[in-house]
Every structure is written in structure tokens, then in C-alpha cells.
């Protein structure tokens, strides 16, 4: 069971980042073994559609759960279709967020709680 958390740094005790598409790192924690690894978010460089690109990164990485503060409509649609669960409203550090998830204190998101930062283009 792999859980990815939006983070400001690539460490288990890093502070969480409030953004999804533009957070600099994800910390991916294996709940079974307790191992973790940092993952640089390459989606941040994108000038539009960062959330979608980031979702693609996590799908490729084979994570099962993503912990976020806020997430946009396209990204959550992609993660949902890939069968990845998204929990919202994290704060504090990565470690604290994973603990909150384990204890069932986070709420499952079925809908975006953040605007589409990429816009739709061509408006």
C-alpha cells in the first residue's frame, strides 16, 4: 500500500504543501514496510495542466492513495479513473498526515476543492 503526500521537501518530516500540481515533492510512504522515498514533481515546470501531469506521474509510480490539502478538478478525475483514492485537508508534516490517514481522520474527496490552475486555455 503506497501513500503519496504533497510535500515542500523530500523528507518524511517535511512540511506538507498545500498544492497538488505545483508541490515540489511527493513523499511516497509504503504503509506495510514503513519505508519512504522522495519523488520530485516534474509537473511543476509545466505552464498549464500541471495537475494532470502530476497525476500522470503518480499513476506511473503505482501509488494507491494520495494525501492533499487541495486538488483541482482535472487531477482528481484522472486519479479517480486510475483507482487512486484522494484524501484532503492535510496539515503539519508528512509523517503527521500519514498518521492522520491511518487513524481515519482525513476525509475522502470525490470532487475538486481547488480551482483549475491551468485554466482551460483558448478562452
Amino acid at each position: 500500500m503506497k501513500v503519496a503526500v504533497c510535500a515542500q521537501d523530500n523528507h518524511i518530516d517535511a512540511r506538507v504543501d498545500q498544492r497538488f500540481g505545483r508541490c515540489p515533492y511527493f513523499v511516497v510512504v509504503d504503509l506495510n514496510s514503513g519505508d519512504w522515498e522522495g519523488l520530485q514533481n516534474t509537473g511543476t515546470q509545466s505552464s498549464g495542466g500541471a495537475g494532470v501531469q502530476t497525476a500522470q506521474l503518480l499513476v506511473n509510480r503505482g501509488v494507491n492513495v494520495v494525501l492533499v490539502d487541495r486538488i483541482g478538478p482535472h487531477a482528481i478525475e484522472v486519479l479517480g479513473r486510475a483507482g487512486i483514492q484522494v484524501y484532503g485537508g492535510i496539515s503539519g508534516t508528512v509523517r503527521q498526515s500519514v498518521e492522520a490517514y491511518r487513524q481515519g481522520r482525513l476525509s475522502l474527496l470525490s470532487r475538486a476543492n481547488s480551482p483549475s490552475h491551468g485554466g482551460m486555455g483558448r478562452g
Partner: protein
Amino acid sequence: MIIAVASGKGGTGKTTVASSLALVAAEKREVLFLDCDVEEPNGHIMLKPHWHKKETVRVPVPEINREKCTFCGTCAEVCAFHALVVLPQEVMLLPTMCHGCGGCWHFCPAGAISPGWREIGQVEEGSSGKIGFVHGRLNVGEAISPPLIQAVKERIRPGILNIIDAPPGTSCPVVRAVKGADFCLLVTEPTPFGLHDLELAYEMATGLGVPCGVAVNRSDGDDSSIRRFCHNNNIPLLFQLPQDREVARGYARGIPAIEVRPEWKEHFLALLAFLERGGYARCAN
């Protein structure tokens, strides 16, 4: 001849002016009214056309053949708009992000993507008395309007007076609507909002090489700021329509200004004469 009626700001009375102009012009010549404000088409409320024809407007989107797809990820890599995501068992399309550029079907090494179509809105055609009428209607939740505006403009008829009711603002959709017009009538109101947006609209029309003139709506008698702007930029201030509660009520009920205030007809006749003299308008044919 193609006349675009535009304004930087919404709600200045673009449709009021455009529909009244169409009604006055139609007394003497053939007129086609093209409502390019596809997000909020309102011209039909004033001119009440009978509809003859409706056509769906579509834009290209990728269609993915799952049998042939090898999930190599090329399509998602080349898509500048991030409209495609390669999941373990499917390739997912985010249709509102797709610009229909064709990159994915051109570059797919497995030949698994072909161009398909997605509906973005409709073009409806009809007539109101002697006025021909066309408008576009964008589907709700749809972000892409320029292809629909283009589809409306494809109905332009050479040799007659075409009046384009443009969307408000100065961004891409407005540019699509105004581009290629012989003359652009900028409708404004004598407030700081009106002046600010007039400046932007003037810059837009000038950037497109379309000559323009100004009409003031809801004038309270003091139009000095607009007058100064026109003078400084050497563009004609064509007419001023006064602030009028009855016209506002008429608009609210779908009655064109020219029917509420028949005496305003002279302003539109003067505008038509001005256009015919052709000092500012290059003739379309």
C-alpha cells in the same frame, strides 16, 4: 460590408445598438445580423427571428483504439495541453483541455489514435422580417468559443450589410469576431469603466487594422472624457444616446431601442450614411 459592434465592457448596450442599426438599415437594403457573443447570445431577443436551420459545431478530438494502443505514453508526452493521461488500462481524454491540434494522432507510433469529433455548440440561422439572422450558442461548461465564432462568421454574405454583434472584452473570442471587419463601432458609456474599456477595445481593433468609431450609450450629457479620448486618437464620435429609463425597460422586455424611441433613427441613418461615404471603411467587395 462587414460592421462589427464591439465594446471592451459588457452591458454597454452593444446589442441595443447593433439590433437598432439592423432594423434601420433593413428599411433600405439587405442585412445579415450575426450574433458572435456565443456565450450569451441576446440579439435574438431583440430581433425575434424565425428559425430555419440549426447546425451542430464540432471540434476534433482524439479517438483511441484500445485494441491497438500499447500504452507507450507518446500521446501524453506530445500533448502541450495535458489533455491525455495514460493509465494502466486506458488512455484517458480530458476533452475540455483538448485543443484538437492533432499531435497525438500524428505521433502515435501504433496508429491507435484517429481524429474524432466533439460537439461544442450550435449555429442557428433564421430571419426577422427582412433581416437575415445567425447566432452561435456555446454549450454550458464548454471553454472553447473561437471555433464556434468562426462557424457563425462563415455565414457572412458578401455584397450586403453584415452586422456582427461581438462578445465583450478584448481577448481571443473578440479578436476572432472583429477580425476581417471593414469597420468596428465601439459602444461605450461615459463612466470611468466605460472609458477604460474603450481604450482597450480601441487598441484591439487598431491592432487588427480595423478602423473604428465610437458611440456613447446612456449619456447623461457630460461625455467630456469620451470626447477627449476620441479627439486625442483622431477617431469619430458618431452619436450619443441618452440615459433613458424607458429604453432600459424596453430592453428588459425585449423591445429594441429604436421602437421605444423612433426619433433615435436619425443617429443610425447618419451612421449608415457615414459608412456609405466610405471614408473609414474599406469596402468588402
